[in-house]
């Protein structure tokens, strides 16, 4: 029988290979050996070290790459440093031209990039050709635009400087674009390390960029493994690290950069929920699962890996999902008729197998469709684990493979609870045809990105990034630009002088009528509470006269305060108008007692009466500022290519710890607390350690200003000690700490437990009396995470 006749009878698909001739020729041109790309040229590793990179589908060696050692990284950073001044000095338009050229260059060589990427990574050519490469080009176009309008849109910011970027192997070229495009657009220069498994498209890009006329030193690529990454992370002349990869490595980077003053963005792992309600388009949702977990072999940080299906439709849903799995095709990455390609490396394959094995041992029911699998190479079949309990390792750990785990829920509330019950918070997908339900759930999910009736949608115009242990920072959109900028207003901050410690000069009383003794307790959950340890510390005037005593808060007081703050979750959903009203009311009540507060400030700090009054007036004004912002710090509606809207919603971090600076005890307190609570955070505040009485006097103002219990909690005592507990507390979402450089280091280091957001000053004091540096969106932006909710629509 002829081959046509056989196909006619069987109606099977047959092979449909994409040619790799051009890709192989490119490798051949380079003799399958690559150096680093530093200062505009390919150079070998200083040490001569090399490592191999392989083709996952066959195991064959693709090329030899240079191992980046210290000398290489130094050279790359020096080149970037040298280029940065000139690059930043270029007009926005000039940089826009470069970015535009890069976008066009990507489009002209789109197929070559796509084929090399598929070979190197193992992902299907469909994905590199139709998704990764077009999106990468789009990122350069989009950010060419930000360069063009930078001078007006970011007039009060300057570039961060030299940026070290470390990217993962799952989207090698796309992640390069996400990192490089905004960095270059906004005037930074780059030292980028691609993942050791997948460096080739980065090297090709470097070659293309040079051809496109990108100046030497602006973009440097250093290849290598984890050690090379560590050299970049630790490098003293790098101003910022942008990392995408595992939460484990993200933690290490946070710890190693603590106190260095390096700005940091981390885009880490996830265990993203995929929630299907009984009023969903079930077939649409089943197809959504394909795009969620069998996209890029499930090696996607935001993969919808936890299916949560409403009980009433669970059987039907699973039946249809299993049927759909039968028509998935797994094959060589360059086959144009497949849904899934190869797992990136044998080590990843064995990790997947191990985790699935543990899941089964813990009671999960394994389902793998009986479909044809390649006989050799690094492949894993599409897999569904059902009957998974939340306690199972496969329900909590990121598998990073084509494995969906499935659970059921009964009510929307339970769906939200199960979805949020994770250490991660990257993405979520919600399927329901009822707009009220879908948006309600989208708003409640702890995730940086939510897709309604869709999944894995990405675009340069919309920010991407996580909450919680999925990291911090955003990539894409206006919110992503700020990650590569720093405020002009903070450029000339001066190192803070250590506060003078006053010495007690005992004096005895006389026989006149004494003032009634006042006990300043702690303020927790809306009540004044005695410190757990029942110790007090004296507050002295500059003359050494006791002004009063405050409680010596300890770790248990912090624990109680955090619990109270966590319980006050209603504040986050209170109307912005309501929050504004309360901030104004606080200002009103403070104003009524301004003389008393000014006297207190003067007595504690020794500043002149005029300066003390000015501090109180500035505090009142600052409260008004945040009262004003409370209902005006709005999100945006992004315009990605979508028939629908993408809502960029600023959401409060949650529970924030605040270590007030020692100076200006009232204004420092207000300057940090007001922006946080204006946008819905609850705070646990440690007031100025030497001058805490301005804060303790404030209790009664909070009590009379309708501030709900638990929104503001105040624990007096040692900044350093209390900061330790706050920074390490895994139910605290953010810590703002102002004081010594050591305090900053400590807070950043201890924040790794739950990767909380930190905002510290490295001992360089902001001039709190200068409104341009000390209030407004600079602070509000740090008090929120932007959640992007994608809402495609149409009937």
């Amino acid at each position, binding site marked *: *029988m*002829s*081959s*046509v*006749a*056989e*196909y*006619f*009878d069987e*109606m*099977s*698909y*047959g*092979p*449909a290979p994409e040619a790799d001739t051009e890709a192989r020729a490119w490798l051949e041109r380079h003799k399958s050996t690559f150096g680093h790309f530093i200062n505009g040229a390919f150079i070998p590793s200083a040490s001569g070290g090399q490592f191999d990179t392989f083709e996952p589908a066959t195991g064959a060696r693709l090329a030899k790459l240079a191992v980046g050692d210290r000398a290489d990284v130094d050279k790359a950073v020096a080149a970037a440093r040298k280029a940065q001044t000139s690059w930043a000095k270029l007009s926005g338009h000039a940089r826009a031209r470069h970015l535009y050229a890069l976008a066009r260059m990507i489009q002209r060589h789109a197929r070559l990039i796509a084929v090399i990427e598929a070979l190197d990574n193992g992902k299907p050519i*469909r994905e590199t*050709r*139709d998704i990764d490469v077009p999106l990468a080009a789009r990122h350069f176009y989009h950010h060419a635009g930000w360069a063009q309008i930078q001078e007006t849109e970011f007039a009060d910011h300057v570039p961060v400087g030299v940026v070290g970027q470390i990217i993962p192997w799952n989207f090698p070229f796309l992640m390069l674009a996400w990192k490089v495009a905004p960095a270059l657009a906004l005037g930074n220069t780059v030292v980028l390390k691609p993942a050791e498994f997948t460096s080739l498209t980065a090297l090709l890009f470097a070659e293309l960029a040079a051809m496109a006329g990108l100046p030497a030193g602006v973009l440097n690529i250093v290849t290598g493994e984890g050690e090379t990454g560590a050299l970049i992370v630790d490098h003293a002349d790098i101003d910022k690290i942008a990392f995408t990869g595992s939460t484990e490595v993200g933690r290490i980077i946070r710890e190693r950069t603590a106190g260095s003053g390096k700005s940091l963005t981390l885009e880490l792992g996830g265990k993203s929920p995929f929630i299907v309600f009984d*009023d*969903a*388009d*079930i*077939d*649409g*949702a089943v*197809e*959504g699962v394909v*795009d969620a977990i069998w996209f890029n072999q499930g090696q996607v940080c935001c993969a919808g890996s936890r299916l949560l299906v409403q009980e009433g439709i669970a059987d039907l849903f699973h*039946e249809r999902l299993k049927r759909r799995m039968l*028509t998935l*095709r797994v094959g060589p990455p360059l086959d*144009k*008729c*497949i*849904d899934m390609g190869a797992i990136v490396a044998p080590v990843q394959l064995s990790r997947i197998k191990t985790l699935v094995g543990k899941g089964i041992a813990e009671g999960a029911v394994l389902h793998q469709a009986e479909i044809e699998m390649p006989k050799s190479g690094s492949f894993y079949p599409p897999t569904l684990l059902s009957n998974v309990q939340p306690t199972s390792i496969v329900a909590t750990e990121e598998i990073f493979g084509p494995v969906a785990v499935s659970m059921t829920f009964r009510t929307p509330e339970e769906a939200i609870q199960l979805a949020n019950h994770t250490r991660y918070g990257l993405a979520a997908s919600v*399927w329901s*045809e009822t707009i009220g339900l879908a948006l309600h759930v989208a708003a409640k999910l702890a995730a940086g990105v939510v897709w309604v*009736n*869709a999944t894995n949608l990405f675009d340069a115009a919309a920010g991407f990034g996580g909450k919680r242990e999925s990291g911090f920072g955003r990539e894409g959109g206006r919110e992503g630009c700020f990650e590569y900028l720093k405020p002009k207003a903070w450029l000339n901050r001066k190192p803070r002088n250590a506060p003078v410690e006053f010495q007690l000069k005992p004096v005895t009383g006389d026989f006149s009528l004494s003032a009634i003794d006042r006990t300043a307790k702690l303020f927790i959950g809306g009540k004044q509470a005695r410190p757990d340890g029942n110790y007090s510390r004296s507050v002295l005037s500059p003359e050494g006269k006791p002004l009063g005593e405050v409680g010596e808060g300890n770790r248990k007081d912090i624990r109680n305060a955090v619990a109270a703050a966590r319980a006050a979750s209603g504040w986050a959903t209170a109307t912005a108008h309501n929050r504004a009203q309360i901030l104004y009311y606080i200002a009103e009540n403070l104003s009524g007692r301004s003389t008393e507060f000014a006297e207190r400030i003067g007595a504690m700090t020794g500043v002149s009466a005029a300066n003390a009054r000015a501090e109180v007036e500035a505090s009142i004004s600052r409260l008004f500022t945040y009262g004003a912002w409370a209902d005006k710090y709005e999100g945006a509606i992004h315009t990605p290519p979508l*028939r*629908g809207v993408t809502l960029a919603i600023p959401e409060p971090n949650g529970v924030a710890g605040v270590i007030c600076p020692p100076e200006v005890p009232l204004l420092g307190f207000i300057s940090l607390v007001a922006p946080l609570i204006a946008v819905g955070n609850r705070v646990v505040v440690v007031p100025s350690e030497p001058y805490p009485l301005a804060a303790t006097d404030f209790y009664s103002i909070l009590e009379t200003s309708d501030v709900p219990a638990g929104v503001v909690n105040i624990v007096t005592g040692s900044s350093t000690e209390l900061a330790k507990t706050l920074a390490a507390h895994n139910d605290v979402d953010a810590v703002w700490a102002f004081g010594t450089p050591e305090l900053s280091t400590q807070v950043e280091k201890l924040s790794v437990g739950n990767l909380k957001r930190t905002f510290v000053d490295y001992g360089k004091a902001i001039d709190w009396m200068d409104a341009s540096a000390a209030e407004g969106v600079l602070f509000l932006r740090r008090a929120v995470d932007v959640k992007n909710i994608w809402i*495609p*629509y*149409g*009937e």
Partner: protein
Amino acid sequence: MRSAASENVRTLPAAGSTAAEPQTNHWPRNPGMDLDLSWALDTRVNLSAGERRVATLPGRRTVKKDAQAAWLLKAVTCIDLTTLNGDDTTERVKRLCAKAMSPVRQDILDALGMGDRRITTGAVCVYHRFVAAAVEALQHSGIPVAAVSTGFPAGLTPHHLKVKEIEASVADGAKEIDIVITREHVLTGNWQALYEEMKDYRAACGSAHVKAILATGDLKTLRNVARASLVCMMAGADFIKTSTGKEGVNATLLVTLVMLRMIRAYEERTGFKVGYKPAGGISTAKDVLNYQFLMKDELGREWLEPDLFRIGASSLLADIERQLEHHVTGAYSAFNRHPIG
């Protein structure tokens, strides 16, 4: 109902070799069921999710070389070769019938190694007036004649006349009747009326198979398409069909996706397989392959054969012929190298 149907399921006959038999009797006929309105009304369709599925399909599936030739040849066997024009004449219809019997040049079939297979189109589709002529022209070919009926294309003639029209076509020898539904029933949510109407048509067809044309371009929303699909199947449609070819928008991959999923849901619930016919707008080989991919991936291998899949088309065949000749010779072909239909 599922078990009753599955008893009758038998392995798929080798296609092509059975082209001489009427091609609509390989699976038990859908007997219909009571109207289950809640099922129809509870069905949800998300537009964007559907769009994404059909947008990514051509990147996920393709066939090359011999496989492509085979798939295109299979498509030929599924074509309802159609002429539905005001200027149709008996002679025009006879010419079409001749093409239906020899849709692809014998030398091309020989070169493909398919010379011993009987490759014909799935049916010839004409207005009632030409049914008798077509039946005569197709005598002994085994190719069924399909008649469009019930006041095609608007479907707004009196109901009793529509039923009479069906009966007349069946009497003239039509083995398949393509009816048009009253769009008003869908647009006003009068599902009971749609169900009754469809039941009457099915009854009037007797042993002739009935294809329900939904006129999806008039129904506008996928929700309407999904509901109308289900109600027509409940009323006993053997096929559901997108369009008359006369609406502003005819067959699209997107409405196809929705209708296929309804067919799948109907089989899931009743065990009966209902056929699918996209019509209008499928004019290139590249187009039809995407429909075939969707049939195979959403419904399964069985739905690639003419007893469950028909394509209403007039100019598609000519493009397929060119592609097949290209496959054989390696040189791009021209329309005038293939006999006109």
